[in-house]
């Protein structure tokens, strides 16, 4: 099967045929964007220094090696826990027009609504695989809000076949992790009942 590759700027129709559980790759640009950047836009009302309309963000805080003269090398960059941005993400999608959000683990109902109503997707990059991701980065093109320090700076990266990206929220209202959670919780109750048969140590 041929690799499904998205290219920025991404249009809503590019995402129509993509469903949860699919695997895609990205060509073009992706900007790291995490806790404080979300807070600055949504709570502080500050304008993001990067235009994300049709673009992609990466919930990630990389290790960067400065090369001098505003040039940087991407050493390691893997996804961080996306759920930390859940509080802001629906509004973030609405305000920025971002089309692809890459991170780790699932996100909640707000992001699902944002993705459904404004045609965007959330995808998981296999976490802990930061060298795989870094080798997909051809160049760091821009660095904004550097006052936030290395992990939280908005690093805009030119990427080639960045992935695998496993779709966890699609534009059709489906949320893979939330669907899995229902199954996990059912199995958890069975597991607890089984363990409790053997741990009545206080008698």
């Amino acid at each position, binding site marked *: 099967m041929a690799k499904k590759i998205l290219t920025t700027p991404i249009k809503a129709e590019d995402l129509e045929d993509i469903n949860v559980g699919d695997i895609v790759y990205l060509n073009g640009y992706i900007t790291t964007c995490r806790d404080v950047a979300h807070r600055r836009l949504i709570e502080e009302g500050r304008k993001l220094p990067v235009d994300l309309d049709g673009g992609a963000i990466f919930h990630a*805080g990389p290790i960067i090696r400065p090369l001098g003269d505003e040039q940087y090398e991407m*050493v390691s960059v893997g996804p961080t826990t996306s759920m930390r941005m859940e509080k802001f993400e629906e509004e973030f999608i609405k305000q920025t027009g971002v089309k692809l959000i890459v991170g780790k*683990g699932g996100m909640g109902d707000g992001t699902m609504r944002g993705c459904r109503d404004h045609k965007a997707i959330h995808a*998981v990059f296999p976490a*802990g695989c930061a*060298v795989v991701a870094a080798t997909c980065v051809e160049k760091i093109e821009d660095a904004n809000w550097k006052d936030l320090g290395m*992990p939280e700076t908005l690093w805009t990266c030119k990427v080639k076949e960045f992935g*695998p990206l496993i779709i966890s929220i699609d534009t059709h209202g489906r949320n893979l992790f939330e669907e899995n959670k229902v199954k996990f919780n059912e199995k*958890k109750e069975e597991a607890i009942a089984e363990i*409790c048969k053997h741990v009545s140590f206080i008698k």
Partner: protein
Amino acid sequence: MKKEEAVLRLTDTVAKVVAYTGKVLPDDVRKKLQELGKEEDASLSKVVYEAMFKNQELAIKLNRPSCQDTGAIQFFLRCGANFPYINEIEEALRASVLQATKDAPLRHNSVETFDEYNTGKNIGKGVPTIFWDIIPNSDKLEIDTYMAGGGCSLPGKAMVLMPGEGYEGVTRFVLDVMTSYGLNACPPLLVGVGIATSVETAAVLSKKALMRPLGSHNENERAASMEKLLEDGINKIGLGPQGLTGKNSVLGVHIENTARHPSVIGVAVNVGCWSHRRGHIVFDRELNYTIDSHTEVDF
């Protein structure tokens, strides 16, 4: 050996261990991941394991930290009361983190609280964190180095149960963490459980439990049986790699315990991610050392 020379030697050796553990997983973790990976047959689980193994190869080949989140470094010490450089240890460990931050390089992960700025050095108030156990009549220094990212620190939880809730309550407490925060914390996880009296005693034990080698068991027979019950139970939940479902959810479950006050059961959970970056080094009084977490290592 002069004190200054000893500090330099300790600093340099620990800095190398810390930098190395950010790039190469310990022997026991590598072996366990191979075993677990072979058992997965769903396509998404396979894609994830393939990426994990490829990543670890690339990290060695390119000499880079395998995960970008190199943690706020922690050291767990078992220091002989007669170790000749006991007074120099803290200074040396802080210096070693500074050196590893530059050499590895490590991500800057120390944000001063309240003033809310990143020090840019991985050093701050109380960071790196050093946990001391003094061993009487010994002249050795044993150190577990640990690099826990934010992702696997996030699920950490401690509370005090009433005895009526019993070990059944402990079971629910642990499994609830797995299905809420655990699935986002990069499974397969190493799960550490502390059982004691109050939150701080249970919490420290739950973290120390993560320093035990994989495959080790609690010396108490009932505790060891509960480790196995929890391991099987959490595997049955089916979190799989990255919480994308699969046959295995954990690298293991380790319980550490002390006696408790009769009125309470303090319980805590800490998890380590699949990229469980632990190092174990033992110095003798001459500062000769052995690293038994990574047998291939030779600085």
